């Protein structure tokens, strides 16, 4: 018996026309598709064996933030597994508010890139365990950085992006992951702009580069098309958790089915 690999459904929370929380799921961070009520969805996933949840506020607006905190509280009152909440967190006060609403961890992306000291401030005040640094990485095949990975026979590096992958920062994603760890991040949440929404599998070169560089747990995200992709990211990259959205939302695969597939192949999972 040992620590299990985690399967995490990700729920993107938006505000519908009536001001209620609504769940959408995206393809390449755009073209959002509606899938339902976040609290109901969380309950269903919990019963299906989800190991924790990630909720992302994709509106990044004041209205979205308020809706998100209400949603987090409603979910925390019903579902007794860990909740990570992200989207628009930029200050120590944002972190505190989100934890008070019932989140166990906050996922910080742009807020930490803009002001890296936020990581240490959050870790000191609330503990490293609740500070998750989220990275939206994309492959760069040009000479803006130092090559250390290979995709389809071509050398590349990975760059941190902001604004859902639309804007590059020039910062190397793996170096940033290492820095975030040193500053006190308790977990890293790695998204791939290239793999997102493709269902062609996780970006293994990216996940491997990050997992090899850090010793804090890594949640692999973007590109999961089925149980075999989760198997691949656990065995090839040594990720600690596999996050997926659309394959679970649309019932293509159940969480239980995914875990059984992994269990049969010797990956420790909670069944």
């Amino acid at each position, binding site marked *: 018996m040992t620590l299990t690999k985690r399967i995490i459904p990700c729920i993107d929370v938006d505000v519908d026309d009536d001001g209620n929380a609504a769940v959408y799921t995206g393809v390449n961070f755009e073209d959002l598709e509606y899938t339902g009520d976040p609290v109901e969805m969380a309950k269903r996933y919990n019963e299906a064996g989800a*190991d924790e949840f990630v909720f992302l506020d994709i509106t990044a607006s004041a209205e979205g933030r308020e809706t998100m905190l209400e949603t987090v509280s409603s979910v925390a009152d019903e579902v*007794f597994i860990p909740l990570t909440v992200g989207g628009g967190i930029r200050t120590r006060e944002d972190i505190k508010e989100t*934890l008070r609403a019932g989140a166990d961890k906050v996922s910080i992306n742009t807020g930490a890139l803009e002001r890296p000291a936020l990581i240490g401030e959050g870790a000191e005040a609330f*503990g490293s365990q609740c500070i998750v640094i989220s990275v939206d990485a994309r492959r760069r095949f040009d000479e803006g950085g130092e090559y250390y990975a290979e995709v389809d026979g071509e050398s590349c590096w990975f760059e941190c992006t902001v604004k859902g992958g639309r804007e590059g920062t020039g910062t190397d994603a793996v170096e940033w992951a290492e820095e975030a760890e040193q500053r006190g991040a308790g977990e890293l949440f790695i998204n791939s702009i290239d793999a997102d929404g493709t269902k062609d599998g996780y970006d293994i070169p990216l996940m491997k580069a990050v997992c090899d560089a850090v010793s*804090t747990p890594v949640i692999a995200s973007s590109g999961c098309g089925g149980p075999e992709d989760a198997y691949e990211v656990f065995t090839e990259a040594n990720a600690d958790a596999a996050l997926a959205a659309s394959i679970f939302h649309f019932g293509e695969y159940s969480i239980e089915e995914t875990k059984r597939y992994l269990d049969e192949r010797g990956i420790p999972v909670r069944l």
Partner: protein
Amino acid sequence: MRGQRQTVAEVAVVDYGLGNLRSVTRGLERAGAAVDVTDDPDTIVDADGIVLPGVGAFSEGMDNAGPFRELLVEQAEAGTPLFGICLGMQMLLTSSEEADHEGEGEVEGLDLIPGTNVRFPDSVKVPQMGWNTLSVQRTHPLVSGPGAADPDGTADSDRSVDGEYAYFVHSYYARPDDPDAVVATTEYGPEFASIVANEAGNVFGTQFHPEKSGETGLQILRNFVDFCADR
């Protein structure tokens, strides 16, 4: 999942700082407790049971819990059930390597369960974050006893959590001086004490978060609330 139970005991959750107290409160309520999240000494003294929650660093936790030290020790000695969760459990021990690690010298724990908290070796990813298995070593009201579905009926199988998964987030673990203080163990690199209790049985703690451990965690909270009600 079972719904809300009838209220059977009053539980005080000691509010000495920051973080998510909502989940532990709701979990205890679901388990049949009337919960006060409080820093008021009288409320703590009047409660049937006390929960010492905690996340973050040992020395900061002890700093924040400092004003409650005497009160908690008195209540523990009077026999009131005192349940430490995560850092709250580590604080029940005498000391922690963490304080030294941070260069802050010796920081005294509550010393209700003699022992120290030590860091995981570098051979494993630190923190341990996620679901791991409980191996129950002996009987205690919090977990019933060893044996998930004991055919001889020596363990109350409805209440047992032996072999179940719980949710952990921690870099340090408890090493009690007395091996009998270990109620359950978990393996992560070394096999470590995931549930500890004092000799009298009324002071105990879980390294994992029962309020985040799904149905297994709720069972532990129900066992705790029943234990408080029985006194």
